């Protein structure tokens, strides 16, 4: 059971970090196409950080045989993996503050997910690793909180375009 605990935990960790990274990359591309450069750059930075974490997790995972879980077989607390920015939370005129706020929520969700593993796992290695990951996520969250504090408040929720939407086809 202990072995299974660790393998399952690592499989979830790899998926969590790689999904977070993929989603940030996708959102960064989309934001760049819509000229929201500030947010695009921020999402790129988040993708990079998730990438670093992914490498760390993957190195540990490489020493273990992980279960072959299909994308819908992971056991997440919500609908998607916790660090992944939800599609419907996004708007192309998203402000940097809103983007950071969103990322902060993602980091906190990831922290909570790892923390719950740390508390509930009977396997010492798993609990130790989970606690370590939770700590790392809380550090990220703290950095984002600092960034938020330094930002001036937004003047409007979703700013409107001056032109109507396009008619591409």
């Amino acid at each position, binding site marked *: 059971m202990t072995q299974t605990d660790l393998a399952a935990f690592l499989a979830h960790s*790899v998926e969590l970090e790689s999904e977070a990274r*993929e989603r940030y990359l996708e959102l960064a591309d989309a934001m760049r196409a*819509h000229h929201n450069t500030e947010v695009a750059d921020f999402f790129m930075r988040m993708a990079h950080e998730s990438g670093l974490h992914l490498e760390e997790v*993957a190195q540990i995972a490489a020493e273990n045989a992980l279960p072959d879980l*299909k994308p819908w077989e992971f056991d997440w607390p919500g*609908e*998607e993996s916790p660090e992944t920015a939800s599609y419907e939370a996004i708007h*192309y005129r998203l402000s940097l503050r809103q983007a950071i706020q969103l990322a902060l929520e993602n980091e906190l969700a990831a922290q909570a997910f790892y923390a719950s593993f740390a508390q509930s796992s009977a396997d010492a290695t798993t609990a130790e690793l989970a606690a370590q990951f939770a700590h790392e996520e809380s550090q990220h969250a703290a950095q984002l909180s600092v960034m938020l504090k330094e930002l001036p408040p937004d003047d409007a929720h979703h700013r409107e375009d001056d032109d109507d939407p396009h008619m591409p086809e």
Partner: protein
Amino acid sequence: MNDVITFKAKDYKSGVKPIWCPGCGHFSVFNAVTKAMAGLGMNKDDTVLVSGIGCSSRLPAYVDSYGFHGVHGRGLAIAQGLKVARPELTVIAMGGDGDGFSIGGNHFMHACRRNVDITYVVMDNEVYGMTKGQASPTTPMDWDHSKLTPHGPGVRPFKPAALALAAGAPWIARAYSGNPNQMAHLLAQAIEFPGFSFLHVLSQCITFCPQQTDWKAIVNERQDAALEDEDEAARLFLHEDGFQTGLLYQRQRPTWPPEAAPPNDPDLTGGFRL
């Protein structure tokens, strides 16, 4: 690192950048398509995504498989022709509510009836996005945000699942863009189902229908097993609010075309010779 993250959804992305607005539900469908392909370990070379015209119909170009981006409303016809001609391929047709239920409505009915072994994903955001937000067959009758119908379309939206059932679709499911993992699972089942599988996706349009972000609070996942009885399914599809997700109806029946007898006579000219 590579060893543990092979067959990932991202490997099924072509690298072409989507044109969709950030916040568009179609990103989620794209995510689910690649996850379903990864989950099933699908061979990219043997998979074809076929679409019509519209925001959602841009999806095939974003997936690293074969694809066909056709004309408005005809994706299902292209997909069926392809599958009949090349039965060994996995064919997934897709498009929007305008494409599938309005201009392509006839093909939708007949695809349900014909039961060729393909999957059809309709990304329903209740609006024509590519032409600047006009009402579609699924738009609420009082939706007055389009200059084309400033007082709302004034026409009752139709119920895609009920129509599919009446036309004979043997597999009907609904997904929501807010839950790509559930959608990926449904899509995987749709692909594996032998016959015409119809996946109706509630896919929000952030630009023209921002109120659809409210869907998150309304959608509810079906807990019971899929219905097998047509009468029960008819009652469900006619009276539900349309926000129940999951596999709703499944009743397998023979696919078309049936197994053909082997060619029996290479001589075509015998009937003409005197």
